[in-house]
């Protein structure tokens, strides 16, 4: 009975025709003829594959794979260029077209873009540093020494991350300064200014939580000082206005929640690590997406006021 089923099976499943097991099954009565038919099938499949490969090499843009990835034609027309940007998940946050005046370099200095570039660099180097760093009181500082002295390119990575962090704060502030000077926070961009301020705060929080991670004297005391300010939070801090009246002590106030204890210790180190490496980057990335998307929705990068010809000026209405 298997003999009668075999040809049908082979015909449907072209890939199995070439392997030896089907030939082995076909041995016996009439086996020679079947083997020849199977080999002929295999030849045909091979020929078709070669033909398809040739066509693929000749015109890769006509294959299904190509079309499934890049869904639009890439002619040199304004429409397909715009579609190329709009239909790409990474580029669609960008405007498809921008005002020629707005790309004048001395208007924006490209500061927002550079900030984002530095952020990408920090995510990359930070992820690599995580491969060698343990957020625990016993080994954290030792891991830093190890990274500095033994890990291949460890010193380079750590310094890229450290200087990049300083640079990102500087870039964010310069970007903000530029936006302020060019009045780009004005209508309709008020919302994006507020998102930008939140991103500034998140940048500073990333900087602050990263400070504790080397677990050296500098970072330890900086975080001691920084979190001690939280003691003075109104209502929620045990040294703040109305804090004691709210029943706040060093063991239930907002500082305790940040540190996971009443002193900067192993819980605080682990918390700083998680805020620094997981939570704040995710929140900041979400806000960045909104920030870039709003730039596009608010009419692209803000540029100088558009020129107006004399013929375009309308007479003000006389009431």
């Amino acid at each position, binding site marked *: 009975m298997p003999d009668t089923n075999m040809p049908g099976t082979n015909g449907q499943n072209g890939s199995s025709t070439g392997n030896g097991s089907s030939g082995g099954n076909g041995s016996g009565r009439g086996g020679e003829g079947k083997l020849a038919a199977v080999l002929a099938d295999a030849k045909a499949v091979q020929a078709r594959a070669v033909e398809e490969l040739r066509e693929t090499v000749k015109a890769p843009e006509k294959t299904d794979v190509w079309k499934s990835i890049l869904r639009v034609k890439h002619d040199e027309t304004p429409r397909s260029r715009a579609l190329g940007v709009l239909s790409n998940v990474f580029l669609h946050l960008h405007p498809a077209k921008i005002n020629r005046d707005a790309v004048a370099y001395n208007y924006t200095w490209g500061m927002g873009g550079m900030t984002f570039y530095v952020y990408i660099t920090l995510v990359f180097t930070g992820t690599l540093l995580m491969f060698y760093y343990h957020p625990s009181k016993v080994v954290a500082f030792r891991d830093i020494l190890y990274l500095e002295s033994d890990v291949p390119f460890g010193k380079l990575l750590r310094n890229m991350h450290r200087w990049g962090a300083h640079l990102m704060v500087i870039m964010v502030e310069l970007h903000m300064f530029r936006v302020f000077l060019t009045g780009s926070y004005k209508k309709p961009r008020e919302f994006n200014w507020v998102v930008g301020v939140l991103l500034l705060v998140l940048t500073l929080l990333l900087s602050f939580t990263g400070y504790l991670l080397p677990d050296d004297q500098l970072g330890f005391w900086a975080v*001691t*000082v920084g979190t001690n*300010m939280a003691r003075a939070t109104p209502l929620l801090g045990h040294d703040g206005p109305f804090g004691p009246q709210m029943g706040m002590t060093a063991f239930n106030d907002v500082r305790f929640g940040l540190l*996971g204890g009443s002193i900067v210790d192993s819980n605080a180190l682990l918390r700083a690590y998680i805020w620094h490496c997981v939570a704040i980057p995710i929140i900041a990335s979400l806000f960045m997406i909104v920030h870039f998307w709003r730039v596009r929705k608010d009419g692209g990068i803000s540029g100088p006021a558009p020129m107006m010809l004399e013929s375009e000026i309308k007479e003000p209405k006389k009431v």
Partner: protein
Amino acid sequence: MAAVLGTLSVNLLMFLRFFYPRALYEPKVKFRIGYPSDFGFGVDTKFQNQYRIWVVRNTEGVFVISAICTHLGCTPDWKASENKFKCPCHGSGYDPEGINFEGPAPRPMDRAHVELDPEGQIVVDLSHVYRWPKGEPSQFNDPGAIIRA
């Protein structure tokens, strides 16, 4: 709608409560440091690393200063040659009794509760401190703030 909002707000409260651990593994706040006669006149820094305190004897008796700057919580250094405590973070200075005289510190450093156990050793309790906030009466002469021996 109310059920969804209720669930979400309970979840938020649970999320916030999660950040407040029930058990802590922090250093002891109540400990023995020896007999009053172990401490001579002036500042003794031998317990600074272990318990973050200084033991001081003046003409009135023995008391224990909590080695926490009242500005923002760093540990000041005892400068024997200058006869003062100096905070490395923002420069607050304190005299040998922990009274602030320079820098941003708002008040003298706190003093820990001290008492003698039946054996005669000093027991320090850092969870109970005596303060002298600016413009308020000093607690430094309260019973338990100093051992007059």
